[in-house]
């Protein structure tokens, strides 16, 4: 019998009385009847429906379901020792690209190097880096790298290459032709040994050192003055008075990272230091270093020799020696001479010119001032930039004369950066065999018969002795990505030695260096320790005695007698902190790096003084032609000497690929020479304005502070009198700081950052470090022109005063992590919030991109992904990646700890929250409290000037708290009551009012 369910007694009764009295139940009956009908409908109908429904949905789902990407996660079959997935390993290594040296730590995640950090164990670079060092990791993943050995452009095997090359070398050797190894300055002792081995294997081998940015003038001068060609070791930290004649020692001159570290020792007025060096800078073009000087004096480069001579003659006079009859020195020079005499042995005069004569004059100036042995060390010498120009000139002549049988090019690119590249190319045709061991495809390797690609430095073993006794090691941080071979190994192989270069270095160190350190029992432990540290400082000193002779300089002075300073337009050719000599031009991070002076990127241009521009009626970005050979846009540069133009080298690369190709113009062909040395200025250029203009991408277009107290500064005198000098507004703001709301307190940590604007030089290393650490997209020139660069940290640069001779001030600005953040309360979806440690956080997944936060940020540090820069967007085919940063190869550089941001979301500085988290976990597992200074954000890590300090504001003894307690500390726009967690220390210039 069918079961009957009822809900109430009433229902049951009605049901039983149904037959008897239908009408008695009235309306209620019908309703209940209908209800029951619904209840007792054949249940199969509903189930059938559900079945049919389910089947339809399921089949529709199956039929139309999208193809799911197959993601493979393959675990290690055998866990490699020391590798924990998700945990970074650091390997000490050495960055040396022929120009810059830096001792580094390589951060490796899951087998990929992803970040370069400074190695604080090195007493040369002391943990500092520069922009190029930071960016070098991206060169490892350059799309334009040589992937295989090749002959005339077609791929061959190493065996084939070896047999053909050896045959050619033998042929050259036997036919008494020269075998030339062309390389940039070799600072690796093992490489030198390998080259010597090669030379002894093949008669007629010669090593020619070719530096694109040489210091041959100084080498020549020192040979004349001291009998030995060498570059001394400068000690900016020991100098109270630094006088630089066009030496951009914080940016490009000789060893900028080392000099920055030394320079700031006497520039930081923190932790009780009240002494500061004075920096006087003479230059024509506005440079990074010049813009940091206490006094900057404009000096046309062609006048520099005469001014140096006048200074020398003043000094000679004041020290009682005979003086040559030179024109009357200006009061500036007289004053300077007097000033220098007061700082005997505590001063340092440097000159960036590549003219032997000028370096001779500077040598005697330093000699008179007693700086040798005090601020200039001759027993420790710098080993980079050893190239002598006349050697290369001779090589080109020999090549053209058919005297060179084999040319082995080791990662130099003369067809691009040699001023007479055409002659070099002609000569190359007449060389029996040419091979380029270059890493990245370039102009030179496109012209050689063979290409035997070298490893990138992060894949290779190497060593270095950057200064006498200062050794360091390079070790591979990744297996070679392509079919490459260490250049040294190639040389060894060709000379019949089949050892790998690692064993070779090890043997060299065992033989030559182990003895210098007796604290290790065995070589193995010595080697492991040094490999771990990356550096070995043996304490070795040069033993060749140097004695000063004034003969050469007297000749120079004699030649200058009676000469006047010509009134011509001079052109300075310089290298910037980005692409430098052009070797790194294919690095998108460096191309997009705004120049610290002009704030321009993605191009080179002609810097022209406002006065000259007005005279010649040249407007900003108007195209001008120099000497009928090169046409570039003009940029009107405040502070540029009246008749000095400046053009950056390193642009206009060919045969390299995206992004370097077609960026700017090659200015190397413009380089002149003086007495066989390349001269980095040419006097008397012809400048012809064109009728068209060319847009230059600049990240900053307004250059005046408009009288706003954003960047506070004072002078040393005022500061010593009153440490609050220049910072009065801070104390006023503190006085008025009131709120209706209770003060937000942070338990535990309250992260803060202090920036010492006296230390910051504006070198931009932090910008690249930040891009590298945080996967900041590169957007390309068009987007920078549209003011959409994505940098999380920027260095604002303002001019102040006379447009023809302004003061320059700089201020790094990143997210201020305001405790009363205007961005946070306006986000409708709460995608940006405040952490309980005081960090302003972004939840990218939650962001819908209203940009309200960016509008309401008074610091304008929030960056919006206007287009699909990263390839993270869900639509296909809309990617905006003109710099090819999203190829599979380039993507290997991405930091897996930081999310890639999609199109349409806001991003910004996170205080490197991933680093904070990492160190917190370390402290937790070690069951201890975090130590002050343990957490270092990428920008602070990169900073050679130690201008950025990060830490816990709740810890009153932390360094950042000490900085915050300083009378110099203030907050940007503190009167808006945003309560920033970033503090700035006022800039103090050491000058008389």
């Amino acid at each position, binding site marked *: 019998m069918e079961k009957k369910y009822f809900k109430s007694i009433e229902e049951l009764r009605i049901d039983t009385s149904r037959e008897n009295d239908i009408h008695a139940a009235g309306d209620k009956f019908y309703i209940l009847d209908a209800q029951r009908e619904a209840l007792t409908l054949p249940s199969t109908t509903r189930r059938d429906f559900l079945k049919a429904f389910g089947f339809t949905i399921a089949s529709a789902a199956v039929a139309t379901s999208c193809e799911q990407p197959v993601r493979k996660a393959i675990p290690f079959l055998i866990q490699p020792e020391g590798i924990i997935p998700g945990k970074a390993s650091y390997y000490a290594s050495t960055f040396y690209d022929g120009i810059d040296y830096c001792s580094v730590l390589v951060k490796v995640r899951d087998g990929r190097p992803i970040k370069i950090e400074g190695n604080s164990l090195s007493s040369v670079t002391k943990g500092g880096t520069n922009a190029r060092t930071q960016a070098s990791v991206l060169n490892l993943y350059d799309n334009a790298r040589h992937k295989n050995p090749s002959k005339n452009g077609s791929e061959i095997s190493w065996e084939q290459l070896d047999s053909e090359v050896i045959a050619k070398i033998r042929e050259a050797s036997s036919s008494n032709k020269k075998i030339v190894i062309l390389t940039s300055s070799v600072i690796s002792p093992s490489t030198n040994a390998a080259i010597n081995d090669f030379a002894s294997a093949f008669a007629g081998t010669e090593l020619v050192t070719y530096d694109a940015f040489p210091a041959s003038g100084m080498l020549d001068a020192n040979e004349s003055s001291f009998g030995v060609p060498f570059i001394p070791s400068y000690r900016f930290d020991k100098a109270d008075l630094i006088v630089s004649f066009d030496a951009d020692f914080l940016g490009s001159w000789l060893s900028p990272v080392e000099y920055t570290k030394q320079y700031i020792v006497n520039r930081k007025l923190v932790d009780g230091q009240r002494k500061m060096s004075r920096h006087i800078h003479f230059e024509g073009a506005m440079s990074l270093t010049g813009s940091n000087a206490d006094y900057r004096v404009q000096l046309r480069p062609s006048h520099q020799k005469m001014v140096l001579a006048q200074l020398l003659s003043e000094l000679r006079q004041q020290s009682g020696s005979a003086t040559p009859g030179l024109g009357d020195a200006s009061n500036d020079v007289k004053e300077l001479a007097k000033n220098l005499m007061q700082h005997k042995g505590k001063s340092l005069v440097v000159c960036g010119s590549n003219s032997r004569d000028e370096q001779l004059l500077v040598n005697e100036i330093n000699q008179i001032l007693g700086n040798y042995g005090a601020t200039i060390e001759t027993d420790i010498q710098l080993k980079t930039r050893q190239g002598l120009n006349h050697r290369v000139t001779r090589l080109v002549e020999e090549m053209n004369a058919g005297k060179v049988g084999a040319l082995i090019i080791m990662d130099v690119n003369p067809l691009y950066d040699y001023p007479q590249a055409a002659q070099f190319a002609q000569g190359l045709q007449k060389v029996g065999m040419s091979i380029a061991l270059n890493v990245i495809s370039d102009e030179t390797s496109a012209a050689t018969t063979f290409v035997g690609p070298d490893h990138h430095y992060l894949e290779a073993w190497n060593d270095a002795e950057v200064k006498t006794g200062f050794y360091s090691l390079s070790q591979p941080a990744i297996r070679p990505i392509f079919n490459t071979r260490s250049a040294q190994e190639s040389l060894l192989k060709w000379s019949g030695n089949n050892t790998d270069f690692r064993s070779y270095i090890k043997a060299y160190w065992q033989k030559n260096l182990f003895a210098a350190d007796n604290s290790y029992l065995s070589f193995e432990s010595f080697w492991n320790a040094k490999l771990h540290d990356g550096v070995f400082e043996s304490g070795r000193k040069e033993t060749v005695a140097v004695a000063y002779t004034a003969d050469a300089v007297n000749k120079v002075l004699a030649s200058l007698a009676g000469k006047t300073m010509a009134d011509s337009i001079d052109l300075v050719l310089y290298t910037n902190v980005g692409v430098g000599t052009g070797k790194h031009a294919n690095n998108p991070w460096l191309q997009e790096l705004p120049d610290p002076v002009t704030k321009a990127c993605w191009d080179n241009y002609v810097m022209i003084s406002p006065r000259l521009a007005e005279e010649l009626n040249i407007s900003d970005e108007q195209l001008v032609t120099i000497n009928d050979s090169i046409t570039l846009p003009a940029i009107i540069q405040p502070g540029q000497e009246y008749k000095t133009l400046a053009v950056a080298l390193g642009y206009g690369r060919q045969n390299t690929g995206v992004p370097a190709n077609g960026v700017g113009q090659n200015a190397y062909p413009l380089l002149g020479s003086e007495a066989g040395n390349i001269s980095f200025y040419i006097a008397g250029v012809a400048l012809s304005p064109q009728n068209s203009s060319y847009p230059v991408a600049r990240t900053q277009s*307004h250059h005046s502070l408009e009288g706003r107290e954003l960047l506070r500064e004072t002078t040393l005198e005022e500061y010593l009198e009153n440490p609050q000098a220049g910072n009065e507004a801070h104390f006023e703001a503190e006085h008025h700081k009131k709120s209706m709301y209770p003060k937000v307190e942070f338990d535990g940590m309250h992260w803060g950052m202090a920036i010492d604007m006296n230390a910051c030089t504006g070198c931009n290393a932090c910008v690249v470090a930040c891009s590298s650490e945080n996967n900041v997209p590169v957007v390309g020139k068009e987007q920078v022109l549209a003011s959409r660069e994505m940098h999380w940290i920027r260095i604002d640069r303002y001019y102040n005063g006379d447009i023809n001779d302004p003061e320059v001030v700089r201020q790094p600005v990143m997210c201020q992590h305001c405790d009363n953040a205007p961005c946070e309360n306006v986000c409708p979806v709460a995608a940006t919030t405040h952490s309980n440690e005081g960090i302003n956080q972004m939840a990218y997944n*939650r962001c819908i991109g209203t940009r309200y936060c960016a509008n309401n940020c008074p610091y304008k540090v929030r960056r919006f992904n206007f287009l699909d820069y990263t390839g993270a967007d869900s639509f296909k085919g809309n990617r905006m990646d003109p710099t090819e940063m999203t190829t599979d190869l380039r993507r290997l550089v991405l930091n897996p700890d930081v999310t890639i941001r999609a199109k349409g979301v806001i991003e910004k500085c996170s205080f490197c929250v991933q680093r904070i988290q990492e160190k917190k976990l370390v402290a937790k597992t070690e069951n201890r409290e975090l130590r002050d200074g343990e957490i270092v954000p990428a920008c602070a890590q990169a900073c050679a000037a130690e201008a950025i300090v990060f830490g816990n504001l709740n810890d009153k003894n932390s360094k950042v708290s000490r900085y915050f307690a300083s009378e110099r500390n203030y907050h*940007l726009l503190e009167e808006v009551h945003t309560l920033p967690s970033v503090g700035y220390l006022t800039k103090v210039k050491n000058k008389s009012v």
Partner: protein
Amino acid sequence: MYVSPIREPLIKGSKDYSQVTKDILAPMAGKPSKYWYMGITLAGSAALFGAWATFMTVYYGIGTWGLNKTIGWAWDITNFVWWVGIGHAGTFISAILLLFRQRWRTSINRSAEAMTLMAIACAGFFPLIHMGRLLLGFFILPYPNTRDLWVNFNSPLLWDVFAITTYLLVSLIFWYIGLIPDLGTVRDKATNKIRKAIYGFLSFGWTGSARHWSRHETVSLILAGLAAPLVLSVHTIVSFDFATSVIPGWHTTIFPPYFVSGAVFSGFAMVLTLLIVARKALNLEDYITVGHIENMNKVIIITGSIVGIAYITEFFIAWYSGVEYEMYAFINRATGPYAWAYWIMMTCNVITPQLFWFKKIRTNLVATFIISIFVNIGMWFERFVIVVTSLHRDYLPSSWTMYKPTIVEVGLYVGTLGVFFTLFLLFIRVFPVIAIAEVKSVLKATGENKKDHHHE
């Protein structure tokens, strides 16, 4: 015996009720004119341009616009505020004037309200399209979810969401309730079955019984009471987007009243622009008389003057505050790179409406039409000036930039204009443009009709 001067009749031409019905329903009958076709083709093309621009924006991203790191809003929010402002006249006319018993409103309230709805729809488009990730735009709604994500009730942008949707809903209901008796009339006049069925459905079975009328009037009054504060609140809340920020030029306490009067100002201008054309094209000159136009012009003088005083007050307060950023923001408005926009705004909004003090001008249709266009332009520039010139030079001079719109942004704006006019053209074909029932109620309220009756 002294006879006091009689009021002008609200409806001219000594009409009887049946004539009124006929006149007003005339535009809906028969085939549309060739001007209508031309109009809808033009408006439709503009809307298609907008559709293309929308696709570009969603597919390629906001990067197709002229925005940059400093200027995060420009045409998008300018258009949004402009459209919201235009959407203020309808409800103002039907709700506030109803409460104030201004019976002349009956001739214009229907079309003004329709315009409000279309303008709000156009306005609502911009906050959506300006999102970098439109497809995740639903995050802005406080819906329950398993991840405990909740919206930020501190954000004025979220207040906008509620303000705009509430306003749209209330206006829509108010408008539709008003339509019901007329839809009954349309149904009764319909000659074909389908039409009868449709309008029969839309009129919710309206029979015109006394009870229906009584309920209708009550609901209308309640809705008017609800809508009246909304007229004030919507633009107040829109102004909070700016007023609660920290950006000089945005952070201004005068914004709520200033925005509301500006909104009514621009709304009336748009109503005038449309109706001056519509009354001619639809032969409704007897219903929308010069008297109506003049009344609206008077509202324009008042609101325009309030706006003008607000502009001057802003400058005074900027100086009086002594805040250098604030002072600079206003000096920059009047003398900076976007000064041209500022002076267009000043000319169109402050100077031209003052011409309405002359009766000759405010009763002249051509002059009124031209000035109404000026006000529309001026009010667009007002928002542009507020949004862009405040942003492009704020606190840190290092970040100062310039802004230039792209074709995509123009497309979005033109697109909404296209949608607006398309909808309006459709509206005049499917709904009576004048509230027939309400107009009938004022037919004999004043004027000749009454007098004639009395003396007969």
